[in-house]
């Protein structure tokens, strides 16, 4: 019983840190509120879809950035999609990099685009690792009523 409480506290702390450190924004909480006993893994399911989408888009963007000359329309489309899905799950830092990429793209700054994309990939990997740890811990701790507590 005590171990469970300890686990739950750990999970709550993990979750809080994701917000405090700016990895997630309020949209993640919106998704948590769509979860219920009938759909207890909704957020994780959506995040898993996000991983799938992201893997595809990262690959496509990598390839597109290698081409000479650059296909700016394609790149813009991919990045728009990436920004959309990261926004939909509340992936704050990833979304910021997407926006930065678009700004460099608009300014025709290819080096800026490439640099930002490397940063974006790093942010994505970090977020994914943290979310995987979080969901795994949450599963170990079992269901909790305090899931959608809003951070201050």
């Amino acid at each position, binding site marked *: 019983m005590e171990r469970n409480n300890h686990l739950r506290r750990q999970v709550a702390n993990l979750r809080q840190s994701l917000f405090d450190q700016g990895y997630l924004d*309020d*949209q993640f909480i*919106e*998704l948590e*509120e*769509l979860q*219920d*006993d*009938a*759909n207890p893994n*909704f957020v994780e*399911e*959506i995040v898993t*879809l*996000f991983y*799938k*989408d992201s893997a595809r888009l990262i690959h496509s963007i990598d390839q597109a950035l290698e081409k000479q000359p650059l296909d700016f329309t394609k790149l813009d*489309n991919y990045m*728009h*999609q990436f*920004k*959309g*899905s990261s*926004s*939909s*799950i509340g992936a704050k830092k990833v979304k910021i990099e997407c926006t930065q990429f678009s700004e460099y793209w608009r300014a025709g700054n290819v080096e800026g685009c490439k640099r930002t994309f490397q940063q974006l990939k790093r942010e994505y990997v970090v977020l994914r690792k943290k979310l995987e740890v979080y969901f795994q811990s949450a599963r170990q701790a079992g269901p909790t*009523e305090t*899931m*959608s*507590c*809003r951070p201050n």
Partner: protein
Amino acid sequence: MAQELHVLAVDDSHVDRKVIERLLKISCCKVTAVESGTRALQYLGLDGEKSSMGIDGLKVNLILTDYSMPGMTGYELLKKIKESSALSKIPVVIMSSEKILPRIDRCLEEGAEEFLLKPVKLSDVKRLRDFILRGEGDVDKETEEKINEVCSRKRKFQDDSTTQPMPSSLGTARDIELSPESSVSSESQQPLSKQSKIG
């Protein structure tokens, strides 16, 4: 008694489709989610003999479509629907992650009921549902409240934990400020077919 609206959701993003599907189901709507405008038109039956019926015979009460999609954009889909005598009466709502005023104007002028900023929230969907219910057939305020009650009771039954209230800071401040004629007003009892939206 509780009417269930049938919503056709159109979005090329798998993530967004899943989210909108969930938002609609929680709001006690039946959902058909498709990935493109072409699929949406296929579902609605281009020959349009049975007006506003999907090919499975389920009447569609609302079309909720993303704007930026490859192939046919949400705007192009909107145009095709409004040009079709069979389908033009179905309300269409556009969703977009970008707040581009000329884009919004163009969609409203073409007959879109509303333009929602992504990511779409549960409060947006509930508001839409209430608006459509009112337009669909003399649903008065009392019936609407009953429907809302049944819907929340259904959800509470599934979910034992206390529902957290939405804080005001997350309110609809980010939604587009529409002109009075075209806004979705909770006081309005106007039927859906009013044409005088655009000033």
